[in-house]
């Protein structure tokens, strides 16, 4: 990948004795759309605030283009932030809000006017210059906040759950819009969200966090297809997670059956988590698959049906475009490729 722009080295953060971040190492590249993803309290926002300079790490260092900026105050950093609740200045109109950063940098008025106009065009808010902050909808305020940050032409834009307060449809639109802006301007985006779908849709790199540690870092496809542990598998998309025992390389026992798999390198008879995506289990005629069971419930989810199938006291979640009636006996077919074996974690 391209040049490194931000490095976090051994960064830890404590609040009143409790650890919010535990020895984080993270490299962010130029022009990358990197997402910090995790449940609330996982340390993703703290990480972002340390990059922005609003928090200082208890230990560890932050580097920006190779320079240590750990003790640099926010106003001296070449990053800008889009805050969760937009944080627009309520006593200024839209134009003044967007112009704020340029005015402080003592840019001349003509340039300010021209840049603000260009930026409001970019976020589809031309003509809103003189409007007050209160008169704008949530989505519009969000776009002002983005314009206000981007007008300063930062090297890195930090976004803290910027779409969290918007409704689903608007959120999807803004996701596409944000991604387009990022591509067009070639700015590095560091994006914080707890919405896994958002992370998969927009990112070049996803960093899954939990309890102040990085669980996995990779492309959305890698993270989805090759989760490193049951937590990541469960957090990214839905999964069936079952206890199993690795009897030998390429062979695993779960649900009282022996299955062929593609994983190796476990010790003999090691207990493992077996992760299978609901869309990877095929419904077949009873007796034809490796397992058989009975349909417990069927939910229509739009594109697919979500069925719960009880087999040997295990409840399997299955996604299929064809629904079977409740009570129907079915067979379940699982291919070796779709069986993901994970080391038992602290999960």
């Amino acid at each position, binding site marked *: 990948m391209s040049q490194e722009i931000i490095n976090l080295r051994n960064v830890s953060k404590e609040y009143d004795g409790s650890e919010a971040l535990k020895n984080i190492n993270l490299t962010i590249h130029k022009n990358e759309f990197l997402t910090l993803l995790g449940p609330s309290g996982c340390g993703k926002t703290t990480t972002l605030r340390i990059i*922005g*300079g*609003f928090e200082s790490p208890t230990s560890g260092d932050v580097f920006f283009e190779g320079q240590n900026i750990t003790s640099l*105050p*926010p*106003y001296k950093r070449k*990053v*800008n*932030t889009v*805050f*969760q*609740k937009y*944080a*627009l*200045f*309520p*006593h200024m109109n839209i134009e003044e809000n967007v112009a*704020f*950063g340029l005015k*402080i*940098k003592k840019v001349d008025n003509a340039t300010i006017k021209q840049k603000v106009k260009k930026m409001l065009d970019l976020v589809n808010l031309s003509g809103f210059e003189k409007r007050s902050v209160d008169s704008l909808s949530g989505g519009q305020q969000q776009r002002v906040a983005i314009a*206000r*940050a981007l007008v*300063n032409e930062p090297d890195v834009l930090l976004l803290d759950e910027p779409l969290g307060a918007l409704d689903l449809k608007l959120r999807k639109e803004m996701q596409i819009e944000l991604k387009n802006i990022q591509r067009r301007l070639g700015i590095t985006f560091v994006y914080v969200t707890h919405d896994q779908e958002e992370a998969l849709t927009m990112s070049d790199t996803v960093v899954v966090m939990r309890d102040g540690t990085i669980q996995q870092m990779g492309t959305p496809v890698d993270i989805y297809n090759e989760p490193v542990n049951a937590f990541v598998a469960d957090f990214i998309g839905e999964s069936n997670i079952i206890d199993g025992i690795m009897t030998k390389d390429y062979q695993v026992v779960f649900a009282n059956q022996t299955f062929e798999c593609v994983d190796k390198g476990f010790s003999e008879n090691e207990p493992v988590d077996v992760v299978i995506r609901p869309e990877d289990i095929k419904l077949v005629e009873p007796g034809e698959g490796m397992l058989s069971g009975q349909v417990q419930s069927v939910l229509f989810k739009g594109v697919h049906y979500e069925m719960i199938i009880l087999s040997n006291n295990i409840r399997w979640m299955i996604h299929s475009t064809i629904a079977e009636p409740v009570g129907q006996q079915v067979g379940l077919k699982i291919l070796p490729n779709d069986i993901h074996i994970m080391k038992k974690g602290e999960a």
Partner: protein
Amino acid sequence: MKHKWITYPYIIWMIIFIIIPLALIVFFSVIIETEHGLQFTLQHFKRFLEPVYMVVLLRSIYIAFISTLICLVLGYPMAMILANRGLNKKQFLVSLFVLPMWMNFLLRTYAWLTLLENSGLINTLLSYLGLKKLNLLYNNYAVILGMVYNFLPFMVLPIYSVLIKIDKSVIEAAQDLGADSFTVFRRVTFPLSLPGVMSGITMVFMPSVTTFVISRLLGGGQYTLIGNLIEQQFLYVGDWNFGSALSVVLMIIILLSMGVMSRYDKEHEGGGLW
């Protein structure tokens, strides 16, 4: 509206204790007793325009203005310190600040008397150190000191309550956009705290311009303010008509100044009296 009768006691209360007294004051201010009975007149107001009384009015406004200014200069930083989110035991400090207000207003002012008088604590200390005694009491400064001391909490509290409500992320956004601490204050914190400043000014200026206790105790009667003048008319001279006229003028001045304030305030917040 349902249960309209609930409002009746309040309406009666307001009529008896607000509307009727106000009407009486206005009534007294425009009548005069002659041999032919009561007659309408504006002579009380005309009398007020005499230089003796104008001096009193201007002095009152001047002293109230200075006191308000001092309260603002002292009170704003105090409110900022109290509102500082890093501050421990904030609640304790705030209540320490309000504590003197639980004590009687007269008592507090008398306390200054014993501190400032010729044989008071400060002068005793000075002579003990072999220094010259100072004339601390019965001048403008003593009156201003009394006002600042008594009314400072009325400046600090409204500013404090506006400051703690300012969204922390707005301050962070300003820092993020390149503003150092001073710029953040000048362009964000201060403009956002203006409603608190405005109500602080109103709440200090109004009692300052009308007080007669502070000026009598600490000014020793030598510095008559308009409050003293009104007091004298009602209690000692017995000229209720002139006293009422003075009160009406004072009320109009206060209303006007509040009107100017809230008009300015409206640009930011909206609402208010006017």
